[in-house]
């Protein structure tokens, strides 16, 4: 069961799209999984032949549970080598030894790159068992968010649920998705505010050139392909990140890890409340048209509850645009374990002083919330400046 976001503890298999014997390749969608937030299509990250499906439809299992086993593709014996650590065979021993043994079955389907077992100290785990406390409901206060004995005791004492000694490992599947989502968002945002030393910067950006360019560009485009200013903003962020890798990645185990690509988490508000920020993959390599189409597709599928697992787990930074709601300024809360969030308010005409003259220009307030463990205000300021610079040359976006 992949971790489809830092706030996910467990998921339910709703549907299998493959059966034993099916050949799959990297990127295929193999299952539909329900988290507390949405129904997510789970992709596979290895080529091979499905061996066995271990979790039946309808079963709720914790993140990290093996869902299925996979045989490597037989035509390519090197796949087995790639999966089990390669053993160096001295050349003198001869090549046959290398290929003699049949490849062992690969006992994993690593659907998501980073599945985190919840951090629970051994003592806390023991205490939770003794007190009948449900660990998945506890937020840890220990090192790196680990659950400690004190957390367990707190959870078991005041008004805590009656301890059922043989309660199931997981709570019953939440009936009310709204409530579950609020709980998940609440837990994650509380963790963010507790653990991440946020700092905030803002920059007002003159968009007159960009908006003018956009008007002309849109005249050339068919109606369906017209661009919105938000596409420019996303593209500018993605291209600025190429020069600012320290803003693009994760804070894990006390250190920064750069993201494998520039995958913008695009914050999408859901009908009926709640929020999800799926990945717009490799946004720095997309044209404005592709960004526009990508965002439209993400929004539609997010609201329909049909996102893919990689979109849930891959974002390397979040961009939130609350301009549509008439907001001027966003002070964002970072989505752990990311290290930065860029916010945009509404594009409005505002008084603008330049070259000794006061004029009226369309501007936007860009804000950065960044993790002070990973970067300092100097770098953050440079990042916002680079976004501005990108927006002054819209023809390059």
């Amino acid at each position, binding site marked *: 069961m992949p971790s489809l976001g830092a706030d996910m503890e467990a998921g339910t298999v709703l549907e299998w799209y493959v059966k034993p014997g099916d050949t799959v390749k990297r990127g295929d969608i193999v299952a539909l999984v329900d988290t507390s937030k949405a129904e997510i299509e789970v992709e596979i990250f290895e080529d091979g032949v499905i061996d066995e499906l271990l979790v039946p439809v309808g079963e709720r299992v914790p993140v990290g549970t093996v869902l299925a086993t996979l045989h490597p593709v037989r035509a390519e014996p090197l796949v087995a080598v790639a999966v089990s650590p390669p053993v160096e065979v001295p050349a003198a021993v001869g090549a046959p030894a290398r290929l003699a043994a049949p490849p062992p079955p690969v006992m994993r389907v690593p659907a998501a790159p980073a599945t985190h077992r919840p951090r629970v*100290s051994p*003592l806390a785990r023991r205490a939770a068992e003794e007190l009948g406390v449900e660990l998945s409901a506890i937020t*840890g206060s*220990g*090192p790196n*968010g680990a659950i*400690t004995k004190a957390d367990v005791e707190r959870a078991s004492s005041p008004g805590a649920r009656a301890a059922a000694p043989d309660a199931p490992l997981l709570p019953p599947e939440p009936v009310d998705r709204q409530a579950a989502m609020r709980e998940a968002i609440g837990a994650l945002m509380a963790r963010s505010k*507790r*653990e991440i030393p946020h700092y905030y910067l803002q920059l007002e950006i003159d968009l007159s050139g960009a908006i003018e360019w956009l008007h002309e560009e849109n005249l050339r485009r068919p109606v369906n392909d017209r661009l919105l200013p938000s596409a420019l903003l996303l593209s500018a962020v993605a291209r600025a990140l190429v020069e600012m890798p320290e803003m693009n990645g994760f804070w894990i185990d006390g250190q920064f890890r750069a993201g494998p690509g520039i995958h913008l988490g695009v914050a999408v508000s859901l009908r009926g409340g709640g929020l999800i920020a799926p990945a717009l993959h490799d946004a720095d390599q997309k044209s404005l048209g592709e960004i526009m189409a990508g965002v439209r597709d993400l929004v539609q599928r997010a609201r329909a509850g049909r996102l893919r697992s990689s979109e849930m787990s891959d974002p390397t930074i979040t961009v939130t645009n609350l301009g549509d709601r008439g907001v001027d300024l966003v002070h964002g809360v970072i989505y752990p374990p990311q290290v930065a969030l860029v916010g945009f308010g509404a594009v409005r005409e505002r008084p603008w002083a330049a070259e000794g003259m006061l004029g009226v220009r369309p501007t936007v307030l860009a804000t950065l919330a960044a993790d002070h463990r990973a970067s300092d205000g100097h770098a953050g300021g440079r990042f916002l400046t680079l976004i501005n610079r990108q927006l002054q040359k819209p023809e390059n976006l």
Partner: protein
Amino acid sequence: MSVAPAKTITLREAIREALLADERVFLMGEDVGAYGGCFGVSKGLLDEFGPERIRDTPLSESAFVGAGIGAAMGGMRPIVEVMTVNFCLLALDQIMNNAATITHMSGGQFAIPLVIRMTTGAGRQVAAQHSHSLEGWLAHIPGLKLLAPATVADARGMLAPALADPNPVLIFEHGSLYNFEGELPADAGAVDIERAAIRRAGADVTLIASGGTVATARSAAEALAGVGIDAEVIDLRVLRPLDDQTIIGSVARTHRAVVIDEGWRSGSLAAEISARIMEQAFYELDAPVARVCSAEVPMPYPHHLEQAALPQPETVVDEVRRMIGGGSDE
């Protein structure tokens, strides 16, 4: 006998008492005689006991440690002084292949009642060939007993039982402790050389230290008390064999441990202690065991770099706060 408070005197008194108590005891090493020991430990002893029992040796650790082993096999009770633990590497063959092994190889026919004293540790700006803490290497060797006095009472009291032990005993004297002063009762005698000691009782975290780092742990414990964290300080005293009972007993009460070791972290004594805690008290742990060790560099000469390379009380405090405070202060 009057008791002088300074530790330089008490350590010398311990040797003097041993020389007086048993005529088989003699002291041997570089500059222990006419010069009085490079840290002044044996000053005056040559005049009192003569060159037969206070023997200056050539600069050849392998030769004079080997001579000590031979003397011990022949029924003497030698105290061999090696100037610093770095130099004992020259005698490592004698220490390991002979001292630690001959009892076994001879089927128990020979005991090796040898005591080797050596200075260890940094902090005195004597650079990368005189400042290291290699106790962890020697603690790897079965057949040796390793002692690390951290208090005036232990500096004074460990020598007699070490000489009485039929096996080779290595005593590591941290260079920074020679100037420590403390009052001892006149009748302060031998101490045990089996157990670790709890130097400060506490409920929230166990700080495990030895020799020179006991002071570091104590300073850290005082600082932690100021922020409401009650730290227990264990002075290992005996580095081999380790007193598991005291260590595990403490961790079972506090559920958290920081091991402070002036050796390098990789393959250190701190690593061994951390592993034992994991093996024997895993289900008592409320946080991963933390280690505060020396930076993995040759010990620098400049004062500020040397201090930066060594375990400091502030580092210990930071580790504990990270453990208990839940990450950052934010």
